[in-house]
């Protein structure tokens, strides 16, 4: 049955990503599965450092496909994202072929005839050889498909979004001089956004909308386990519990998964076996990136450690 197939396929996605060191929640796995089945891009939103970019890398590694990454920034335009004419090459070729052109045009009696003949050559200089493909075109032309990561789309201008619409819905690009380029195999497209600005409805409509928030305690423990194998189970539980307590504070920048992993690495390096006030105080700057945040968290450390240890007993 189709239903049976779907749930096993989603589990396969989960374990496949896990093999690449990416522990996905059920929802993420469903999104990845669906994007493949109905050929829609995934728009991933969420705070910084929860593994949005990692997801694309893991999907690419799992499927054994090439990942093409387009980092968005303000002022990104068609020439840098889609394609560009190799202007210098065009110029150089015209210079080299000057004599050849003279020969060809020599036969023409009138200006009109020369122009006629020149028209046939015009197209030579606007052919595939003179197009410099940028990430989006590369992704479409890649044989066998690839994973296209459009990173931090919210950083780009609103005009760039409109440029993406054609690619996202039909997997094709129109180059006025050449015609429309279709994707050989539709790439898996993953867009990430930090919600710095609201994306347009037209873009959102074409995507599966996936929100990755801070993971639950269990899931985060598994993530730490897969990423930092050297850490003991007690310490892992304590530190993840502690971070969950920290996230309940009103901070400028909450520690996310990447900070958890960094902190776990630091704790392993320092050969800590258990969380205590001193070691937390020394390494707090790994977790919190603002002076004001550290000051706000400082007085709570002892209580949080105690709480994390207590939840351990029941967990």
């Amino acid at each position, binding site marked *: 049955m189709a239903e*049976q197939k*779907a*749930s096993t396929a*989603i589990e396969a996605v989960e374990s496949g990503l896990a093999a690449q060191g990416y522990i996905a929640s059920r*929802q993420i796995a*469903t999104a990845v*599965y*669906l994007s493949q089945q109905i050929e829609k891009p995934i728009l991933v939103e969420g705070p910084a450092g929860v593994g949005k970019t990692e997801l694309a890398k893991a999907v690419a590694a799992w499927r054994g496909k090439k990942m093409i990454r387009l980092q968005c920034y303000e002022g990104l335009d068609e020439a840098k994202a889609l394609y560009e004419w190799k202007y210098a090459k065009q110029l150089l070729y015209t210079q080299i072929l000057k004599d050849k052109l003279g020969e060809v045009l020599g036969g023409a009696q009138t200006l009109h005839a020369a122009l006629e003949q020149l028209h046939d050559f015009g197209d030579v200089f606007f052919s595939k050889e003179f197009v410099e493909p940028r990430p989006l075109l590369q992704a479409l032309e890649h044989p066998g498909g690839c994973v296209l990561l459009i990173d931090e789309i919210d950083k780009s201008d609103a005009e760039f979004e409109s440029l993406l619409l054609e690619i996202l819905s039909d997997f094709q690009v129109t180059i006025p001089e050449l015609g429309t380029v279709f994707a050989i195999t539709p790439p898996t497209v993953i867009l990430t956004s930090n919600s710095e600005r609201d994306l347009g409805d037209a873009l*959102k409509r074409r995507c599966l*909308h996936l929100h990755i928030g801070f993971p639950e305690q269990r899931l985060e423990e598994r993530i730490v386990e897969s990423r930092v194998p050297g850490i003991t189970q007690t310490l892992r539980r304590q530190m993840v519990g502690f971070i969950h307590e920290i996230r309940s504070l009103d901070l400028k920048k909450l520690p996310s998964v990447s900070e958890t992993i960094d902190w776990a690495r630091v704790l392993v390096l320092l050969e800590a076996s258990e969380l205590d006030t001193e070691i937390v105080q020394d390494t707090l700057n790994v977790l919190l990136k603002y002076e004001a945040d550290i000051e706000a968290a400082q007085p709570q450390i002892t209580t949080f450690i105690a709480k994390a240890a207590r939840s351990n007993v029941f967990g």
Partner: protein
Amino acid sequence: MRENIHRFFRAARGAGVHVSPAESIDAMRAVAEVGVSDRAILRDTLLLTLAKSQDEKLALGDCFDLFFSQPEPRQQQPEASNDDTPHEAAQSRSSGATSDAGENQPSEGLGPLAQMLLSQDRNAIAAAIASAAGAASLSDIRYSTQRGIFSSRILDAMGLQRLRDDLDDLTATNPALAERLRATLDGLREAVRDTVAQGLALYAREEAENLRNEILRNAPLARIERRQVAEMRALIRQIARRLRERYSKPRKRQRRGHLDVRRTLRRNAAWGGVPFLTAWKRKHRDRPKIVALCDVSGSVAQVSDFFLLLIHSLHEVVGDVRSFAFSSHLIEVSDILESKSPEEAMAEIMSKVGFGSSDYGSSLVDFEKEWMSTLTPQTTVIVLGDARSNNLDPRADILRRISERSKRLVWLNPEGRLAWGFGDSEMPRYATFCSLVRQCATAQQLERAVSDIVATYQ
């Protein structure tokens, strides 16, 4: 199931999630892909395809849970627990039970609804309610006042008329069975009522919200109840968002003005003054600058609160706002409003200048002494107040000077036009120096007033 998913799309629209036809097609494709047997996967799938932001995900998640939780038909009798017994068996069992009770009256002559109720088959009853709700088009319910009519429509569709006839017959022939049937009928009514209440929560939320917002928009700001303040704040934020969307991107408008004769002549000197090339003056556009003076005494305070909230949520449109609050004297409050949440800011402003009796004259003197120099010919000055100065000197001369220094002077008065000039109202005297005086008592009027002010800069 397809029918159910379509009904869910309607429910999702009711929950405020925009579901366009294209999105519903995509969602249908996705659902066809994953199937409907696994509730958790179905939920994730619909959330992925339909919701487009975190808020929508939450709303849609709640909607999903509500939609797929069927209200259980309540049964009066405990023996309903074995609900998987086949229809016939249960029926014969129940008729057997009645035969034990005494009079042997077979229930064969009864209508289908009566038989179903007596058989205590909970699944069958739930299914019958669901299909009757579909027949009565419960998804069209819009207002809470329609609950009664939808309940009776559903019951009619289930065959209540026939059941009534059966009941009449039974009361004569088999009173005990009639009693039982009557009890189960009450249970059925309750179940139908629950179904309708659920339908109302699912399908009518948007409509109800629109209606409430419409009422709220036209309610006088000064007299809204405490519990409505939070709703009003949300409404004001909505208005602010709308104004931002409308005005934050300056529309490309023709900026060309009159012919610049001087430059045209000079440019065409080479052709002996024959104007081949024309030069045009450009219209100058000012950046919005607003100075707001708000009365925070007594009844005007609430309106000022909302006004300040609105004007300070328009960052993208008006970058330069300075606000001042006064009752008996005047202070600048821009920093307080910028740095704190609306509630805290208002509390602090009130503790500093609120609750005094208003004295427009001395407040204007305060303004002239300290801040008159901030006014430029690009500034719009907005005064919000009822102009009731407790018979103190109104100092309209200062207002005249403010008006002369600024681009426009707009007076917003929460009182109705009829009250202007009566009692201690100084409105007519002030009005002579204002470019515009308008009433501003409701959220709608507030929106219009602010929208007009911002529009003059476009």
